């Protein structure tokens, strides 16, 4: 589904990613973790070209991402993304947030798009909020709307960039529950998160990054049970320690 080959990325003189190799198979759930500044957000943003890589290759569902806008467009139609800060459109209602892309990008008839949207709102357990504006919802509800919005495009792959980091603790669970459910249904997922509990239950593989490199990649049992590197051990003790 995703294939990254020796990918490097610079922000001006700062190298954010250093020859990263990573492959995510269809249906696989990969959790990416690591200290802040390790390049994990940059890595996930490469997948739908919110950031452009400078060296190496990124291939998503058989399409190699290049400067050609057509490749970018093709990939973005297949890939859903959920952000740390929700990024809902504040001037539109929840329902409008959900139907916008299907109607304007995929030219789904409005009525059909609304039906799909309401189904998905039910799935993320907020069917009654359809006509509210994002600012009227709690953080947890907003993030679930954001998940539903991404799902409205019927993506083959979902990217989550620290989906629970901006949430109050009591709201984290309601978002994670939705994500777990999504994983059980077989969605291919790439998740940047510090929620190690989520990684343990859901992930097929945990990728640990530090300093722009993938330091370790292993199934959760192995990664949490016997981390190979000192760096990962230190990180885990900090994350799980409290």
């Amino acid at each position, binding site marked *: 589904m995703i294939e990254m080959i020796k990918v490097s990325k610079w922000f001006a003189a700062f190298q954010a990613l250093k020859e990263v190799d990573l492959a995510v198979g269809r249906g696989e759930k990969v959790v990416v973790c690591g200290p802040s500044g390790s390049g994990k957000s940059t890595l996930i943003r490469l997948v739908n070209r919110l950031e452009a890589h400078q060296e190496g290759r990124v291939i998503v569902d058989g399409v190699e991402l290049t400067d050609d806008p057509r490749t970018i467009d093709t990939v973005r139609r297949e*890939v859903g993304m959920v952000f740390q800060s929700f990024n809902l459109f504040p001037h539109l209602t929840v329902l409008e947030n959900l139907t916008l892309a299907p109607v304007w990008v995929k030219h789904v008839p409005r009525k059909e798009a609304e039906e799909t949207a309401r189904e998905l709102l039910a799935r993320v357990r907020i069917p009654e909020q359809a006509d509210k504006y994002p600012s009227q919802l709690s953080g947890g509800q907003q993030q679930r709307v954001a998940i539903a*919005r991404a799902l409205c495009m019927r993506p083959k792959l979902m990217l989550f960039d620290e989906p629970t980091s901006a949430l109050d603790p009591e709201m984290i669970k309601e978002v994670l529950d939705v994500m777990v459910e999504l994983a059980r249904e077989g969605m291919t997922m790439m998740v940047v998160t510090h929620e190690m509990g989520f990684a343990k239950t859901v992930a097929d593989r945990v990728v640990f990054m530090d300093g722009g490199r993938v330091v370790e990649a292993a199934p959760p049992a192995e990664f949490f049970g016997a981390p190979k590197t000192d760096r990962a051990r230190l990180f885990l003790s900090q994350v799980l320690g409290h």
Partner: protein
Amino acid sequence: MRWLRDNFFGGWASGVFTVVLILLLWKTLPPFIDWAFLDAIWKPDPKACRAAEGACWGFIAEKHRFILFGTYPYELHWRPAIATVLLIGLWVFSAFRRFWRWWLASVWLLGLTAIGVLMWGGVFGMRYVENERWGGMILTLLLTTFGLAFAFPLSILLALGRRSDMPVIRALCIGYIELIRGVPLISLLFMASVMLPLFLPSGVSIDKLLRAQIAMILFAAAYLAEVVRGGLQAIPRGQYDAAHALALPYWRRTCLIILPQALRISVPPLVNTFIAFFKDTSLVLIIGLFDLLSTIKVSIQDRAWTGFGVEAYLFASLVYFAFCTAMSRYSRSFEHR
């Protein structure tokens, strides 16, 4: 009493200020009321006006037709009068949110056509009046309406172009905005009225009103573009990320996500610029068009009535003030949504 003390004598600075203000009003307000009302002459009689101490409102009464309609043929004043009411009506009508539908555009088209027919005439047995003779209130309103109607969309394109990834477009937009902003409106109007005809091939002529209108549109667009750009810059990056991630192409992203938010943020400075533009239309005076302020200026040059400039300008101020206050009040109700 308590309210009085809290609000007007809350501290020594506030107390001193209140006393000074009361003294100032005491000195200025009664004489003004004497001048403006008690001693004022309301009859259009220049002799009585000169003899009296107070204001000469008779002057306004005498000249109001010329002030409002300029050099438009006297016996046909009913035409610009209806046109003025129609245009103001269109604005008021459009102010109601419940009328913000697609058909509002047709209402405007219909209204403007009616105004055009009334002003030009030449059909339905109405006498043709060339637009060199249009003047007064309707000219001010038309210059503002058409000026904003064209300048605003143009400014949005300029603001978007200024933030474009394409270097040529960006450079063109920056060049345009900086060039126009660096030049006073007066010189643009002079250029439009004096220099532009020199560049046009012989035989082709654009009338004075249209040239002035184009100059004003170009001018307003540059200023509005910077206001819109301010709004665009206030949109958080996450909004762009989300729109990109949903594969929304450029124009959909811009029209559905970015502009609705950016323009809402820009309402106060936009209205500020609109108001400034409304008042700037008075500069067409210098190229010989008779807008509201120009007609007043001409009125006070009448031999029989020299010396009543204060009354005339006070009247003009009141008219401008009424329009500008209406605009700003409306924009405030808009911000609170």
